[in-house]
């Protein structure tokens, strides 16, 4: 078989039943995999900058917490009513822990936590509060805005559906 005919066969395959079955199989697999396991996502908003830029592309890996729970500093995807819209936030406190912000610094159970991913200046002050059982406390990396304008807080583990792939 010549190279030309091989290329031709690759791009213009004959529609044999075997080929059609293969196409159907690939289509079903892609639908299930990219619809339920590795969701393509487009990042909108600046709340996770500079770690994740507005307009960036990524994938949400939904099997990450199949056998484990989120840990501190993990970036997680928090779902709304369904899978089409989700929030990308960083876990800063786990269940049972007490969280507070003092002059922009994060304190968990009274101990200051280093956050190298927070690059922009922050002057938040948030009184201490305890994270409820079955929940985590999530915040964006970009805290260069008034506390009232940043959407963050405690969410249940049921809403944490995965992590960005990179």
């Amino acid at each position, binding site marked *: 078989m010549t190279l030309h005919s091989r290329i031709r066969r690759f791009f213009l395959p004959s529609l044999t039943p075997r080929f059609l079955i293969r196409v159907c199989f690939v289509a079903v697999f892609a639908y299930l995999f990219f619809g339920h396991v590795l969701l393509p996502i487009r990042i*909108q*908003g600046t709340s996770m900058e500079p770690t994740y830029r507005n307009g960036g592309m990524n994938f949400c890996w939904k099997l990450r917490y199949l056998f484990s729970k989120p840990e501190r500093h993990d970036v997680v995807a*928090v779902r*709304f*009513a*369904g*899978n*089409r*819209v989700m*929030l990308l*936030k960083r876990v800063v406190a786990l269940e049972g822990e007490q969280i507070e912000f003092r002059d922009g610094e994060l304190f968990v159970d009274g101990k200051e936590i280093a956050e190298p991913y927070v690059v922009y200046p922050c002057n938040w002050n*948030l009184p201490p509060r305890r994270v409820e059982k079955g929940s985590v406390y*999530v915040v964006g990396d970009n805290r260069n805005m008034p506390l009232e304008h940043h*959407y*963050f*807080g*405690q*969410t249940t583990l049921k*809403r944490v559906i995965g992590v960005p792939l990179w």
Partner: protein
Amino acid sequence: MVKLKYILIAIVIVGLGLLATRYLFQSEEKRVRKQFDRLSEYVSKEPDENVMATANKMQKLGSLFGDSCELQVSVEALSGTYTREEIASYAARARSRFSRVSLEFYDPEVVFPERDVAKVTLTARLTGQTRAGERMRETRELECLLKKSEKKWLFTHIAVIEVLQK
């Protein structure tokens, strides 16, 4: 060969029949979903919208709600029960602050807890630009109750679900 021809004709007829049934006989769930499409259409605004179009949209917006509609949000000052005229009036005032507004709904899940009552959980995203040029994007999970009155599904309760609790 003849057999195959008849099978293909039968498949086409069945397909057309299914499509016709789908479009001619709307299910109650579809009617409920349609109300959200209408709500989205009436709230959304393009920069070139004229006064007549605004008035028409606000009148139509009011007709989507029951005699009274309870609004439940985290901001106490906004929570309460409103008449459809009040809702239309507030919406008109709010829209006037924006040069462009778009309301989109994602992942609606419709259940019928009792006869003539529909409960819908979904994600709502409001994006826009104020007349001052400031961009706005707010995403919230909503739980809505609609009641059927004179063959129309009308909004009677809208609650904002707190996905993140500060």
